[in-house]
């Protein structure tokens, strides 16, 4: 075969997704779509109060209602359910209270589960909740983190004697000395508001005992983590792990919210076991707002010390992180992930970080797209803007003076991470060219001089982040209970078709397409010949699932490595069949040929069939070319990029309109540009939503007042601009594909770019910050306050 006939590689091509056919025709298998014979519906009675003692729970009346099969309180399931797990106790002395799936004596946040009812259909189950009798004695809510840490504050967990969950420091260099040496010190407080992830598919779970009556269970769940869930459910329920099969069928988005082991998953399993019948639970959106974990909710005190010409000397961060009422799967680890990202792409010699985790009577927080890294990136990028303003420097210029030069990689940051690669210059230059930076600055000046009521602002974010959440040894050092590896295996079927089995568990990311592209190229088969199996612990027995932009950089690499092994085994068979030595074989586009005599050739499909028959294999060879691989990365990966945002701010109303947005991301090698671009778009939408729209708001009694989609402002199509996206491609050196991960980059980068633009528009009026989300009222208020400070008439 000549090079001219060689098909174009699949990697790098915008292959339309294999997943789409069922999704655009409604032939989906969302968990709530599933129905099994004899299936019952579970509904959960939740605390209407933030904090209360349960004096009495009476399920007598509800059990007698028509259509109700059973009802359970904590006491009824005593001994069958342990505490829900936290896999990331970040310090040795962390305060880690029990988290019972059903509250027994005390409820600690609005929505804390108190009882479950099981009925013949969802309507009967909903009705039955009204018949549950509970008496509560209200206890004081704990809502404000700083107040919660004060002496004598009411306690979320009285037995623990404190609301302080942990203290976690990180220090590198001598910050005090750096500060003493500095010409300028900028100190700011930023508030990362609480966010609600809002995957479009509400959570659902269906637990089914084996139809045979054996003590075995299948649990379908709208989860990102079937493998971790299986293990954790075994721990929580005591059911042996091999007796639990977890299936994540079609899952409609997660964004971290389905990276969890939820009470309802354990409850459905235990109730199904007790009743011997399948039990399904599906949350309503507003129920999910109380019961599905939230994200962010941190207070950041940030300080940077710099020289008069804008060289950073050091950075100090004091963080308060709201855990909510309980520690869920990785709750305490979220701010710790962020700890490593505060220095961003900048060089400095000193860094002092301290995080205090705090319990409050609110829904627990946990991973939400970016998980710690958006918070850190926001703080450093916003404080860089403030430093630039203080020094009278252009914010892009200040960044240039401080970032790690392209020639300086690999570079170990002051926080201890070794960035393998990057090209901040290239990404920034490209972004500036797309954006028309100078023209926008000129217009901004012109509007200011004219006294226009509509001001223009420009925001910049030169970010990096860490993806992959591996190596496992580093995770050990961070006290994370799991590893960071990922598994894949490849089956060459006798007909030459291919099955890729992956331990990742996609819920919108398109792994079936991307993994096919990777495997197809290595094996030299058409993408269409590859199927990807995932999301079922029986089909894909080993895996660490999908979160933290890890799937491609760990799971995709595992697919690649497994495919390489398949080719290696096939080579041996091919050499045997062609009576050639392995070294003399070339493998091109799926065909083994003897170097120099291309007429003697065997396709990999022929090799697969020959292996199936096993009639003529090398002596001692196992009759298979199937292979598996578990990747243990030796570093995180570090996507980076430059985002620029221009906003128009109506100073009369405070309304903000995004006029243009440019994102140039460097996510390393790109397998499928279409999918990568889509990930960036979606990430941007969520980052912009934090900047401008979304906030979970509690009232003074601890009720979630932004409790429905009508009150929590997820942006719709008219609320977002058209994005200009582009890429630079600096391959990661830490994996053979050169990939870095893209799931969270847009979210991490965009929030500071947008808020930075809003502040930039108003800085001439004396505004130096607007708290997120930058609602029109907050913007207007900031203008009023600035005017009052300057003594201007309103």
């Amino acid at each position, binding site marked *: 075969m000549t090079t001219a006939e060689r098909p174009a590689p699949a990697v790098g091509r915008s292959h339309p997704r294999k997943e789409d056919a069922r999704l655009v025709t409604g032939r989906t298998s969302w968990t709530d779509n599933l129905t099994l014979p004899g299936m019952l519906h579970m509904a959960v009675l939740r605390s209407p109060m933030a904090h209360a003692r349960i004096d009495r729970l009476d399920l007598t009346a509800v059990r007698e209602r028509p259509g109700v099969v059973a009802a359970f309180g904590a006491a009824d399931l005593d001994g069958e359910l342990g505490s829900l797990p936290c896999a990331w106790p970040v310090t040795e002395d962390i305060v880690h209270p029990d988290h019972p799936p059903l509250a027994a004596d005390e409820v600690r946040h609005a929505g804390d589960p108190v009882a479950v009812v099981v009925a013949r259909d969802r309507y009967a189950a909903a009705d039955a909740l009204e018949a549950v009798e509970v008496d509560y004695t209200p206890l004081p809510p704990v809502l404000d983190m700083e107040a919660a840490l004060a002496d004598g504050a009411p306690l979320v967990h009285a037995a623990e004697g404190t609301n302080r969950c942990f203290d976690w420091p990180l220090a590198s260099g001598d910050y005090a000395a750096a500060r003493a040496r500095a010409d300028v010190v900028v100190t700011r407080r930023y508030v990362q508001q609480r966010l609600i992830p809002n995957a479009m598919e509400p959570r659902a779970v269906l637990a089914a005992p084996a139809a045979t009556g054996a003590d075995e269970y299948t649990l379908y769940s709208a989860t990102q983590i079937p493998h971790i869930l299986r293990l954790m459910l075994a721990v929580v329920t005591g059911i042996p792990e091999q007796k639990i099969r977890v299936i994540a069928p079609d899952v*409609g988005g997660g964004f971290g919210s389905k990276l969890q082991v939820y009470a309802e998953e354990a409850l459905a399993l235990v109730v199904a076991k007790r009743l011997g019948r399948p039990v399904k639970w599906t949350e309503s959106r507003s129920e999910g707002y109380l019961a599905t974990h939230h994200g962010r909710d941190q207070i950041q005190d940030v300080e940077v010390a710099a020289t008069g010409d804008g060289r950073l000397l050091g950075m100090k961060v004091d963080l308060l992180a709201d855990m909510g009422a309980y520690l869920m799967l990785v709750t305490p680890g979220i701010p710790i992930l962020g700890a490593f990202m505060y220095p961003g792409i900048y060089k400095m010699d000193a860094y002092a970080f301290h995080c205090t985790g705090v319990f409050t009577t609110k829904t627990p927080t946990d991973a939400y797209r970016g998980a710690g890294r958006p918070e850190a990136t926001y703080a450093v990028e916003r404080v860089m803007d403030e430093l630039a303003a203080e020094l009278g420097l252009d914010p892009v210029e200040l960044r240039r003076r401080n970032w790690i030069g392209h020639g300086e990689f690999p570079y170990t940051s002051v926080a201890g991470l070794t960035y393998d690669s990057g090209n901040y210059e290239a990404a920034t230059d490209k972004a500036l060219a797309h954006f028309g930076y100078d023209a926008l600055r000129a217009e901004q000046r012109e509007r200011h001089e004219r006294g226009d009521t509509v001001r223009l602002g420009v925001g910049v974010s030169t970010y990096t982040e860490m993806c992959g959440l591996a190596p496992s040894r580093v995770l050990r050092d961070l006290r994370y209970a799991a590893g960071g590896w990922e598994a894949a295996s490849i089956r060459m079927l006798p007909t030459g078709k291919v099955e890729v089995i992956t331990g990742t568990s996609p819920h919108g990311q398109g792994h079936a397409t991307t993994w096919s592209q990777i495997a197809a190229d290595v094996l030299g088969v058409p993408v269409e010949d590859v199927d990807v199996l995932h999301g079922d612990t029986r089909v894909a027995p080993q895996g660490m699932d999908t979160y933290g932009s890890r799937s491609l950089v760990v799971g995709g690499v595992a697919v690649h490595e497994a495919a390489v092994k398949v080719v290696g085994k096939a080579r041996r068979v091919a050499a045997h069949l062609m009576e050639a030595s392995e070294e003399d074989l070339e493998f091109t586009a799926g065909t083994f040929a003897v170097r120099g005599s291309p007429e003697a050739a065997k396709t990999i499909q022929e090799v697969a069939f020959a292996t199936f028959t096993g009639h003529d294999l090398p002596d001692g060879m196992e009759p298979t070319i199937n292979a598996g691989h578990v990747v243990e990365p030796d570093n995180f990966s570090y996507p980076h990029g430059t985002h620029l945002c221009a906003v128009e701010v109506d100073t009369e109303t405070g309304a903000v309109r995004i006029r243009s947005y440019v994102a140039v991301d460097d996510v390393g090698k790109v397998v499928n540009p279409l999918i990568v671009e889509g990930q960036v*778009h979606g990430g941007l939408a969520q980052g912009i939503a934090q900047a401008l729209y979304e906030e979970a708001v509690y009232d003074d009694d601890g009720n979630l007042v932004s409790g429905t989609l009508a009150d929590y402002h997820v942006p*719709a199509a008219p609320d977002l601009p058209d994005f200009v996206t582009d890429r630079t491609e600096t391959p990661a050196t830490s994996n053979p594909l050169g990939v870095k991960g893209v799931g969270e980059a847009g979210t991490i980068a965009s929030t500071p770019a947008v808020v930075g633009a809003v502040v930039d528009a108003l800085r001439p009026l004396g505004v130096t910050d607007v708290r997120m989300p930058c609602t029109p009222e907050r913007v207007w208020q900031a203008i009023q306050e600035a005017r009052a400070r300057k003594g201007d008439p309103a």
Partner: protein
Amino acid sequence: MSRISVTVDGTTYEDDVEPRLLLVHYLRDRLGLTGTPVGCDTGNCGACTVDVSGASVKSCSMLAVQADGAEVTTIQGLAADGRWHPLQRAFHEEHGLQCGYCTPGMILAARDLLRANPHPTAEEVRHGLEGNLCRCTGYQNIVRAVLAAADAGAGTGADSGADTGGEAAI
């Protein structure tokens, strides 16, 4: 119980239903037509959008009894003779979906939009879809898909469906 007769994706069903039964639960739980998902409880997300006698509606905000006598089209009834609707094709080709949960509602809402305005601007597409939330795509490729489908004649083709009618006099 109320007796209703509803035609869904070309098949006529007669059923006794509780008056409170939501149309979307009738489709999903009674007819087993699970292509139409439920995404919220306030009518905001639009995931459950279907076509009722020529107009898009949110099937979570309509009682099954209100649909008595109506012709309902769901995402499962859009493809004709095994051929995808131009919007289905465009959503696939332009990567207008990721997790796909909002997709049935988006496509039904877009179909309604193109029926009224076969060649919308991008801005008009964004406004026409304001009742449908997507959390994955940032909407950009959805807009691109709808514009591509419009170019392919989705709003003027045979599928464009009946007009909303209802011109009764006072």
